[in-house]
């Protein structure tokens, strides 16, 4: 059959194109625009070329934030993905427990991010916070505002509390889609619990886990609100992640050029890592 081409159909995507242009492309191009120019206000711009990029890439401050951020994302993935899978494996498959568990799991996801930060900031305060007060009563010295390790622990625990549910829900969705026959066949084949997980559940969860890993990586790599509320990037600059650094540079110091250059580098890093995860995890799918 001859395929008919009707180029008028392209007009149908015009509204979406406009929407994306306003919400993504134009802001992005503005950032590109800033990143290659210098300004002292008054809407006067001077060509700066790649100066800002070199400046950002040469600054120790940028690399420190980047390394901190990579460590943070690695820790988050290393905790949330296995923990999420473990919880999903132990969730009930039928009965009243299912809706109860699902609602409980969804709760942290429904809380606005700055509220999550506030909750944990209050919770960890030694004078009025239940956790901070309790720990200090137990004789543990816990000061997230003064001790870098405590600050890290607080932010990581908070993120695990906030986002593990997402991994749980995605993994659970993957698990319940496995037909009963697979488990029955595995029983007949005499497979151990571990073999069932390794050869049935994990392969069937691969696609949702890919999504979970990508989302958790991108979100944790771009984390801003929670550490901003809890630690403000401190103590010192121990929890100053890329986004916090970026905002300091752009809003605090009004260095629009370097901030724009940094945004673009930041964006490319997220893109690069997402691509690596995707490529590694879908490798061999076509075989």
């Amino acid at each position, binding site marked *: 059959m001859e395929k008919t081409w009707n180029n008028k159909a392209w007009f149908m995507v015009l509204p979406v194109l406009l929407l994306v242009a306003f919400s993504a492309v134009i802001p992005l191009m503005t950032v590109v625009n800033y990143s290659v120019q210098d300004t002292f206000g008054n809407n006067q711009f001077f060509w700066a070329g790649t100066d800002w990029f070199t400046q950002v890439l040469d600054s120790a401050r940028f690399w420190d934030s980047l390394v901190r951020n990579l460590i943070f994302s690695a820790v988050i993935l290393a905790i949330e993905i296995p923990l999420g899978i473990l919880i999903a494996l132990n969730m009930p498959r039928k009965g009243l427990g299912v809706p109860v568990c699902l609602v409980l799991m969804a709760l942290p996801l429904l809380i606005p991010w700055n509220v999550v930060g506030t909750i944990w900031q209050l919770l960890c305060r030694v004078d009025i916070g239940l956790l901070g007060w309790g720990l200090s009563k137990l004789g543990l010295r816990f000061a997230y505002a003064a001790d870098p390790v405590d600050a890290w622990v607080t932010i990581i625990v908070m993120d695990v509390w906030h986002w593990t549910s997402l991994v749980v829900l995605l993994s659970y969705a993957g698990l319940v889609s496995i037909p009963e026959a697979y488990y*029955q066949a595995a029983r007949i*084949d*005499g497979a151990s619990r571990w073999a069932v997980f390794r050869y049935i559940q994990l392969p069937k969860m691969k696609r949702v886990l890919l999504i979970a890993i990508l989302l958790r990586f991108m979100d944790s790599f771009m984390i801003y609100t929670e550490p901003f509320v809890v630690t403000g990037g401190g103590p010192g600059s121990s929890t100053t992640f890329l986004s916090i650094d970026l905002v300091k540079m752009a809003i605090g110091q009004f260095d629009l050029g370097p901030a724009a250059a940094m945004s673009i580098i930041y964006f490319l890093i997220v893109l690069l890592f997402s691509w690596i995860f995707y490529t590694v995890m879908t490798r061999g799918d076509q075989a």
Partner: protein
Amino acid sequence: MARITLDHIRHAYGIRPSAPNDYALREVNHEWKDGGAYALLGPSGCGKTTLLNIISGLLQPSEGHILFDGEDVTDLPPEARNIAQVFQFPVIYDTMTVYDNLAFPLRNRGVAEPEVDRRVREILEMIDLSSWAKKTARGLTADQKQKISLGRGLVRNDVNAILFDEPLTVIDPHMKWVLRSQLKKLHRQFGFTMVYVTHDQTEALTFADKVVVMYDGQIVQIGTPAELFERPSHTFVGYFIGSPGMNVLPMQLDGTRAIVGGESVELGFAPAVAAATRLELGIRPEFLRIGREGHPVRIDKVEDIGRHKIVRATFAGQSVAAVLSEEDEVPADARIAFDPMAINIYADSWRVERGA
């Protein structure tokens, strides 16, 4: 291979069954012989998969015992029963190669690697997948995947029985024939005890030596395809097997004659039935003759389906179907004749034996 004894098995999915209707499986008490090919045939929800899962051990029967070669296995889990089961949808471990898939049940049982290799190669040969051994199982077609599921069962030594749960559902029609004949061949060659669940009568009749017809949680008849065709022991078997199914006509008895809506049909024997039972006359469309002799009949429709003709007619107020060969003519004032030897009488849906 083993003889399977089903000793007064009943099963209910609910917790405290009381009425007979609470049972998905109503009392099954049979012995299936070693090396036999049995088909469990019946409509959806008749309990055939329940029975199969009880044999494989995936389900514990509420009551009764199951024995393999006289040994009680009721409390044994599936992995200890040495059975193979092929499911409706192919179950394969798709990250493994074909070879590893087949080796999986042996390795799980700690069989030594040289023995694993010997068995797997043998099975690969048997199911005709030798050239695929090193390939990932993911890329295979549905019928190849089903063969792997089968192979994973066969690879263990002395499998007691191979159970099939509608294994050809997802297979392309032309491959169904190929796969079914390969199964038959394996059965003849190695003499496995096979139990095959299906709702497709063609599949059941071509596959099995003995067809077990199930209806509403019970076994209504176990017989060879010929027995099911000639002497259906329950009207359900009559309806369900054959295309079109058996004609079943309400009747009254008058000695050796059946009265169907005012017409009197000679039976040639006097069925022994208790009074006040609901009687029906059953006759297969193949044994009704449309011609110039017999009882008056009104022809409604003639369907020519190639090899033969199906005549839909109204006899004594009842619609009946008759199968005629291609050459047979349907006369203008047609009449219908019953072959007395092919008539079965049913009392409350169950067949009445012909007396001597």
